[in-house]
């Protein structure tokens, strides 16, 4: 009698089988790849701000130091967003008519804060402390990238725990002299010798235990 299946079913069936296995593998692999993409990590997408604040202008043209506005960085966990009166310190003199600065003036006179949008956002269970990093020779640029070249600021590092551990495991390859903390362009002549020296000098410790960041 006639067979139930035709010759072509063999090929069809095997292709189907391969598809099945392949599909299963993709199902597992795809998300693992996805979470490593800048897209998921929210890297490189410049964020709009209520005020068109341009770091390029303030840092490069005016040569204002990071710590002038973000002064808490040296003492507190948060780097601090400057209060409106700090902005107005200059801008009641210069550009005090500029429509660009309208929101600032409104905030200044109404007393309502300017609602900035957070760019570097780690989960709430991560207790990052600016003070200790800044005081132990980790430069702004190391995590925030060339902010001085950003019109609208965006996240450069992927801010994954692996990324944190990467530096925590070998601080010597990232430390820099304390007077170069806010220097965006500084490069060590020879990090391999300078690094270990600074680590000893500043008493930098490689801390990878959990409660260092999670409490």
């Amino acid at each position, binding site marked *: 009698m006639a067979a139930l299946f035709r010759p072509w079913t063999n090929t069809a069936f095997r292709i189907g089988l391969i598809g099945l296995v392949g599909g299963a593998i993709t199902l597992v692999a795809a*998300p*693992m790849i*996805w*979470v490593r993409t800048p897209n*998921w990590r*929210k890297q490189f997408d410049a*964020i709009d701000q209520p005020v068109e604040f341009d770091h390029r202008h303030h840092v490069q043209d005016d040569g204002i130091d990071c710590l002038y506005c973000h002064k*808490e960085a040296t*003492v*507190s*966990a*948060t780097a*601090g*967003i*400057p*209060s*409106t*009166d*700090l902005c107005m310190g200059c801008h009641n003199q210069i550009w005090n008519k500029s429509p660009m600065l309208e929101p600032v003036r409104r*905030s*200044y006179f109404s*007393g*309502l*804060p*300017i*609602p*900035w*949008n*957070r760019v570097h*956002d780690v*989960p*709430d*269970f991560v*207790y990052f*402390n600016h*003070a*200790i990093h800044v*005081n*132990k020779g980790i430069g702004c640029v190391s995590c925030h990238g060339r902010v001085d070249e950003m019109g609208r600021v965006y996240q450069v590092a992927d801010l*994954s*725990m692996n990324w944190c551990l990467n530096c925590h495991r070998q601080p010597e390859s990232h430390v820099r002299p304390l007077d170069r903390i806010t220097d965006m362009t500084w490069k060590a002549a020879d990090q391999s010798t300078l690094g270990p020296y600074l680590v000893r000098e*500043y*008493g930098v*410790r490689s801390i990878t*235990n*959990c*409660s*260092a960041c*999670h*409490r």
Partner: protein
Amino acid sequence: MGNDVRALWERILAGKTGRDYWRSLAELVSEGSPEDRQREFPEGADERPDEPSRRSFMKLLGASMALAGVTGCVKDPVEKILPYTHRPPEVTPGLSRYYATSMTLDGLATGLLVASRDGRPIKIEGNPDHPASLGAAGVLEQASILGLYDPNRARAITQKGALASWDALATELARPRTDRGAGLRILIEPTASPLLASLLGRLLAAYPAARVTVHSAFETGAAAQGATLAFGRPLVPQLDLRNASVVVSLDSDFLDGQGMHLRHSRHFAERRRPGWPSPTMNRLYVVESMPSCTGTVADHKLRRRSSEIGTFAAALAAEILLGGKPPSAVSPDIVVALRPFLGREERALVGAIARDLVRAGNGGLVVVGDRQPAHVHALGALVNSVLGAVGSTVSMTDPILWNPGTAGQDLAALVAEMRVGAVDTLVILGGNPVYTAPGGLDFAGALGSVRQSFYLGLYADETGARTTWFVPETHYLEAWGDGRAGDGTASVVQPLIRPLFGGRTDAEILATLLGTTYPSAHALVREQWRTMLGETDFEARWEATLRRGFLPGSEAPVVRADLAAPGIVAALATLAAAPAPAPDRYELGFYYDSKVHDGRFANNPWLQELPDPTTKITWDNAAVISIRTASELGVMNGDLIEITLPGFDNAVPAVTTSPPPATTVVLPAFVMAGHADRAISLRLGYGRGAALPVAEGVGTNVQPLRRQGRSFLDGASVRPTGEKHALAQTQKHWELHDRPIALSATLEAYRDKPGFTREQKGPVLSILPAVDYTGEQWAMSIDMSICTGCSACVVACQAENNIPVVGKAGVLRSREMHWLRIDTYHTGEVDTPEVVHQPMLCQHCEKAPCEYVCPVNATVHSPDGLNEMVYNRCIGTRFCSNNCPYKVRRFNWFDWMEEKPEFNGDIRTLQKNPDVTVRERGVMEKCTFCVQRIRRAEIDASIERRAIRPGEVTTACAQACPTSAIRFGSLAHKETDMVRWREEPRSFGVLHELGTRPRIQYLALIKNPNPEVG
């Protein structure tokens, strides 16, 4: 069922050792069979949320996203940052600042330091320099921070329930009176505030006919009246326990719940700790009806009904003056009057105590509780002066509380006047009299016949609902004001935050009465203190005072006091005349609750969930009775009993204005070893009415049974109703089962055999490689000898670590979240057991059993010896909790913020500590040794390129402990007490033989019994 229960009790009492008793009690009374428990939870009656909350769905959503994301954290949409517009120079975002202020309770102030972060107060600590605090902060002080953020606080001025404006109110209040104040009555709580005193003074000057009633749920004047008898003038005793070597407490809980209890605890502990090499201790006798915290640390506890304590005092005095040779000459009349009391108590016992006191001489001390009537205080004063203790362990000063003098009027008189309509304006400043007034006089009814009544209160409570005008009061953390500590030290109250709901202070109301329509408490305080600090560079001194929180050297001067025989004779006469208690009746004793006090803190979830130090009951009050009483009545824990006080209706002339208050109260019985027989102890402050959602329906209001001027009364009849009520206890087993958990010994035994804990410490054999711990190694030492079980540490921990509240249902299911609990064990005699308090928290074992069973590395050990709990890594297998022999781990069975928003949510979230993660549903949590504080200190030290200093870091519990029984620090700091204590012979580790190598060392409880007492 009554009979077989009776049989059970008989069997228990027959038991030779306490052991059988405790066991049976554990099995049959405390816990009940699971089948019973099941009945408590009928299908679906557990904490099943009514309808799926939005967040739960978001959770699921998040879950699926996380699943898709194969990663720990799901990124949220863009978050906002709101910087200051005008930044205050002193504020640094992310750093806490501390401000000195003080909290006033029952008129006496306690100095505090309050941590403020980014403008919101988040934590309360004691003010180390303040005489009433010495750096400690009690349960109520700690918890008051949550009271500030209570969303149920009143928010608006109302007139007859309708919204009204301050202007309208002010004009009403300030309306000039023509009657010299004849119709004006002021009802205030006891106060020692210089500001209020002067304002009231001015008021009475302006309206000489006005009358002031000082009312509190309890009489606070007994001591002063006693002194009037003993010394012929009203004085109050100031204790100095640093000098006391033998203390006899007559119904006094001086280590907990009194104005100066923090100071007393600290000083008592200093003499209590049997240090090494020469262990010496003071000795404490406690005579009381209901076991108190003080009672639990006593070397000898004597169970007496409150009414018998007077007799005891007399007998003691008799023994001292007649038993041995009189140590000092007293007037013969006293001796004569005392003679009949000789032997009214068992002489061997009282004699021994008397001799002990005499030996101690001016190191002896008799403390009489405020609950006792004046004549007992007089006898106390007698004994003290005979011993020569006056001037050494106790000194007399003028009363600290403000006294209206001739303008004064007691509550009963006021109510009578109100009822006949003689009062046209009644101004009530706090105190919620409708609830706190004794049931005897129907205050609520009388209030109806007052033309115009004003009430200033934190809540629109029972009183607020009945007065014509209601004014929201400011919380003390929002207010300017002042007060005096128990020793008279003038202290300032300064606000840390703008009033959240508007609100006024009592001073402002009084000022308004005096005609200023827009008073400012700030201005008033400054005015007042101008007079106290003097004009000369006032600003600087004012600034200094604000920084310090109080005015040094302002304590009340000690006055000389000589015995006045006639008064004492009179006292003895009243005592002799006291009628014998009816045989078939029971004595009712009324007590402040150690958590909700007189009910003013009833809306505070932390306090409601805090286990009572002695009964471990949460979310309830009970009729506490002795074992024999229980056996007489045939009841066990949770059986509802009906307490009736006969002959009530004629106590008050005309109770026609409103339905007469009930004379019977039904509430659950709780059987407590160490309680006096044939007496029933009731705690005030429960059964609050509406407007307090948290407190509503919690416990039973026992005020209807109270009588004006009596904190205990005789002649109640009791009847079991046969119904049951589930009491939510956090601890149900009180027996040690001979396990080496909470070790104890007597002083002699300790001297003879110091190494009695040797089995429970030292190295243990292990096949595991030694982990070398270098650098800072965090550890804790706890001295059980000086732990009174007051539970301040528990609340401190709750405040510091964002610990959620689970509610009664949660506690009944044994799901309370406290990281730190106080285990209380009973040993020894059945009737009067020895009590051991053992604060139990994560032991931070070096070989932690919890760690190696976690499949995902969510709990691991840090190089500095901490047992780390990583919430964000935890998947919630609960394996760690199973393997924790100390059972100190807590699990988030629900998202408590979601499931119990009424306790954890709303603006209460403003209190949360920003340095501690708020734990998600389904993760394990536990004591972290306040790791956030440790890391903070590490960072500071590291930035300054130095090592952490000894004492730089301490945990919330250690910081709050009134007796400093908890010491925290690094093992590297050899010179600290924490380390020295561990080297004392009596130190030990709990469950040492398991080889967990706990980082917490306990110091065994040492008691110092009098060998003469059998």
